[in-house]
């Protein structure tokens, strides 16, 4: 999860993977994604309790940004039961 000087620098990165196009995004789109309620709510004292309810907005926004054409941003599997 890194920042680069330009799209060309992303593609020139030694660890760039060709099947990851949906993750190549300008700063403004990543700033939008990291501005959903999940991040804004971290300053609230009941954040951990609310955490599970704050995740869905991410996939709605990714859809709006046209970034759900592949499985790249599919949600992770639920954590194993403890």
């Amino acid at each position, binding site marked *: *999860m*890194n*920042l*680069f*000087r*330009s*799209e060309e*620098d*992303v593609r*020139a*990165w*030694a*660890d*760039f*993977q060709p099947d*990851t196009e949906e*993750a*190549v*995004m*300008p*700063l*403004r*789109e*990543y*700033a939008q*994604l*990291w*501005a959903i309620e999940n*991040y*804004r709510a*971290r*300053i609230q*004292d*009941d*954040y*951990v*309790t609310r*955490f*599970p309810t704050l995740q869905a907005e991410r996939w709605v926004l990714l859809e709006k940004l046209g970034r759900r054409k592949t*499985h*790249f*941003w*599919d*949600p*992770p*599997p639920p*954590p194993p039961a*403890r």
Partner: protein
Amino acid sequence: MSELSELDQTYCVIRDRLRETGQAPHYTELAVALGAPVREGYRRLHDLMAHPYPCWLHPGTDWIASFPPFSNIPTQYRVSVEGQQRWFAQCGFESLAMCWVFPGKTVRIDTRCLSSGKSLRIEMRDGKVLLAEPGTIYGYVNLPMAKWRENIPYA
């Protein structure tokens, strides 16, 4: 904090220590802050680390390594608030979320492009990008989101 859950109370102590000092507490300090015995601080730290909130300990230790958006280990994402460089972000994307734990303040991110090594600077306040140098900054992760948990420090 009596109406908050145990996990929320633990979260608040660690978050606030990181906000104030740039450093996460040890579980002995956590215990003092919670008014609990040391062993209770240990348990509560490990309970929070087992939660899906993406924080983790340095492997094989009880030392907090990462507590988003903060990193307790220096990373290339240096963060300054109101001109003071005291914090590190967990990753490039989390650096963009630093402004949410410093509401109303100007947060500056200084880093270097992972590809060219050239400098990048971003200033944000309450989610708004005030400055980006250069104006062409891009973000990228090469691991699909479903696999982030398998190797979260790398992702």
